[in-house]
């Protein structure tokens, strides 16, 4: 299982990268390689050019301000996992990362790579959707910001044009004391989730919900925010009825089937993980408030 031949480029700056993107046809970007290399080895893809973006330092790093969290696309998953800054502003991310592949894949895998490859069961794109992240994109024709709602174009399809790259992901952090929950069900630790869910909640002083976000992933080709649930939760308590209603919206998704499970089972699991994630978020928020 050896890749077919390609020309290899490893630009050292964003400018060099832009220049390459402008002139090369049939090129693929090599980020962490944990998804692309298997595809190359299996000859599922055969690009003429491989552009290795691991040597452009400005593409990695976590930058925090009061209003914004910005994570460079090439930030390694292993680094995200141990980042104390991220743990304090977005604890859901660390929880999700514990399920992302294995220790070896997190050494090389990047948040940007995961968010551009867009495996339906990938945790990081789902968390970005949950956080209403914006995707900072740059190409030979300039830069643009793509909101999460426009990022997911279909199965394995991001909003990137052929010659663009994802430079960073940014979001407004939720307030201190927000609750987070994350659950996924997989057959074995580190496997692609059959279905997963993540939730964020903010409560008012009287324990009613003033902000809610719930995302389900692994079920449809793209992560899905449960908008009905989110608006239904506003102003109410997180009780069993609320949890049941959330699970029901999750079960209404247009689930995929595959060699492992049927669509029906996947929908069922979507309901289970949604309820669990939301319940956890409720617990965590209560502790903080």
């Amino acid at each position, binding site marked *: 299982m050896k890749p077919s031949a390609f020309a290899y480029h490893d630009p050292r700056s964003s400018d060099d990268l832009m220049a390459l993107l402008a002139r090369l046809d049939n090129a693929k970007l090599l980020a962490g390689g944990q998804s692309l290399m298997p595809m190359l080895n299996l000859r599922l893809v055969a690009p003429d050019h491989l552009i290795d973006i691991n040597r452009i330092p400005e593409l990695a790093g976590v930058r925090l301000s009061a209003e914004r969290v910005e994570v460079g696309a090439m930030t390694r998953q292993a680094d995200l996992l141990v980042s104390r800054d991220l743990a304090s502003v977005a604890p859901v991310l660390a929880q999700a990362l514990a399920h992302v592949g294995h220790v070896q894949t997190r050494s090389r895998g990047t948040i940007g790579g995961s968010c551009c490859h867009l495996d339906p069961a990938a945790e990081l794109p789902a968390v970005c959707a949950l956080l209403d992240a914006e995707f900072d994109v740059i190409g030979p024709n300039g830069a643009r910001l793509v909101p999460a709602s426009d990022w997911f174009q279909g199965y394995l399809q991001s909003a990137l044009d052929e010659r663009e790259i994802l430079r960073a992901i940014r979001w407004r952090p939720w307030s201190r004391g927000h609750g987070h929950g994350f659950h996924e069900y997989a*057959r*074995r630790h580190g496997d692609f989730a059959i279905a997963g869910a993540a939730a964020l909640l903010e409560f008012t002083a009287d324990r009613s919900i003033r902000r809610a976000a719930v995302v389900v992933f692994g079920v449809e080709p793209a992560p899905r925010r449960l908008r009905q649930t989110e608006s239904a939760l506003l102003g109410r308590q997180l009780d069993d009825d609320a949890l049941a209603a959330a699970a029901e919206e999750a079960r209404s998704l247009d689930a995929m089937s595959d*060699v492992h499970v049927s669509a029906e089972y996947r929908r069922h699991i979507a309901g289970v993980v949604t309820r669990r994630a939301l319940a956890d978020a409720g617990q965590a928020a209560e502790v903080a408030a």
Partner: protein
Amino acid sequence: MSTRYFGAPVARIEDPRLLTGGGRYVDDIVLPGMLHAAFLRSPVAHGRIRSIDRSAALAIPGIHAVYTMTDFAGIASGPMPPMAPHPLLQTPITCRPLTDDEVRYAGEPIAIVIADSRASAEDALAAIALDIEHLPAAADARAAAAKAAPRVHTERESNLIATMRGTHGKVDAVFASAAHRFTESFATHRGGCHGMECRGVVASVDGPSGDLTLFTSSQSPYMVRRFLSSYLGRDESGIRVVAPDVGGGFGPKANVYPEEFAVALAAIRCGRPVKWIEDRQEHFLATTQQRDQFWTLEVACDAHGRMLGVRGCCIHDNGAYAPYGLILPATALASFPGPYALQAFDIAIDVVLTNLVPTSPVRGAGRPNTAFVLERLADGVARRLGLPREEVRRRSFVRAEQMPYVTGGKMRDGSPVAYDSGDYIGALDLVLDKIDAAGFERRRGEAAKRGRLLGLGLASCVEDTGLGPFEGASVRVTPSGKVVVSTGAASQGQGHATVFAQIAADALGVAIGDVIVRSADTSAFPLGLSTIASRIAVTAGSSVEIAARKVRDKAIKVAAQLLEVAEHDLDINDGAVHVAGVRDMKVTLATIARTLSGAAGVALPKEIEPDLAATGYFETSQLAFAYGSQACEVEIDPETGDAKIIRYVVAHDCGRLINPKLVDGQIRGGVVHGIGNALFERMRHDVSGQPLTTTYGDYLLPAASEMPDIEIHHIETPSPRNPIGVKGAGEGGTIPAAAWVISAIEDALGSRAPPITMHPVSPENILEWLKTIKA
């Protein structure tokens, strides 16, 4: 004789080398001028090749040749010899090293590319233009058995190649008079080999002599030599086959494969060494595997739940060829009645071809399938009669005082099967005690409070081991006092070298560090058979014992002459023969070896032949029967259907333990493989015979995070059938494992859930069954 090492958990002599990156697997072998091969494989399950255009491939730099079978016409031709001829298979059903015009499974090798590198060989594969006509394919064994099914081989009228039958006792009478009878159907599925090392071959021809050397990741180097010799029409003295370090065999590497032949033919044809390393996708496609057996069985029992008889039939998926004859279904058949003292049984297995890769034994061979159906039938009797499951076993098992017990089954050569020794009820009682079965209901209640369903499962098996007719070993003391053990027995991680060193060191009174073991090289030892069927400790181990004893006896004879004392006054230890009680009156083994190596003009001791060495072949026509019981607890999450094994206890009797650590390793590895078969491993194909699970993302192997710690209790009932009292241990962990996992899940789901009659089971299956309870 000292037993300093026998029975001790001695550290493995293989380990320092393997731990420091010093393993020498076939891909580590590099020969001067070596070229690399890749195979063009059939993209369809059944087809007829119209044309192959190699021109674009040959134009790629670095490509030396693209061979099809016709390119080897000057060297050899025709189908490969069958490994295990059987009277029921009048005409062997084997493939050619490279296919002729009809391909019969997706992945069948069509052509071989020889290139400077594997990568460029794969480039060439992509450039070969293959025009292939699709033919109808049979992908399911049940469908393939039907008269109107597509023909797996266009020239064969029927896909049914044999019906194997095992009968014992007066079946009709037993069933007619039984208090209860019921019928059940089962679907057992076992997957593939998946040793972490795939297959691989390096073949080279020595220019001047024309001798062919093959390094192959094989369990059967001697079979490879034998069949290559016959196929090429050259004497085996001109062929050397070596199995180097092998990264796991588990059964499928015991076959002789078309790729081994094709690589040899290519090396002969192009005159340069050729290496082919199977990649993991090829392993999914082209290494043999087990797959489906569909059983329908009726069991008869008395009013107290004692099982009296079993009858029924099975449809067995054999795949597109029968390279391994009928061994796999035969083993399933021969595993009846298991530990049950059945008065009668009548089992028929229909062996059916399909357009899928051939099936052959995978750890346990057909025994896990038989253990599964017998254990499910026993649980079914318990369920229907409202008896505890273990009671049905206590009433139905062969009892210790019935040993040796003639089962009514037949061995490969037709002789009757008789269990040699064992206490099956004792093993069951032991395992139930160790898992604290008495306290289980309390634990079930505690789990229920946490919202979990807890189940207790149990299963038992008998495992035939030590298959004959022989293996061999030679033991030689060198003039520097080292002991060299040579044997044909091949290893794939079992630690045979350590075990043989333990036996030889004990017999000759040397330190284990002074023993060197060489194996699996046809030029270093004349005969060998195969490492299969948990046979090597029994046969090769006994051979080492026999040879070492002969050397010991010879050393004592020589020492008696040199020291001028009687033989019975002599002891042997610390590398020397000495007068009992007088350590200083001694002669070292090194001295004896040097003496017997001769010096010009110097006579040898009287009536002593040269060389401090001997060869032994342990021959046996009987089997040694290991057995055991296993119990486990499985916890089910009723929301997801996830089943987690939280406790696992094994009671196992494989006779005397040469090295308890190694036996434990075999059992644990075997159990985990069985858990894989129960919960995770399924080879899927679509209706056209296209494999759907061809990567480790699709096909799930058991991983460390989900496996339990496994508690093992050994029972050591020596086998009377070999000089070291051992029984094999390689497969006993696997054989009952799927049965107990399923038994535990069924117990967790409770008596209102439908009985579980299949494996593997998925969380989705479990959820379905839970739904039927709620309904």
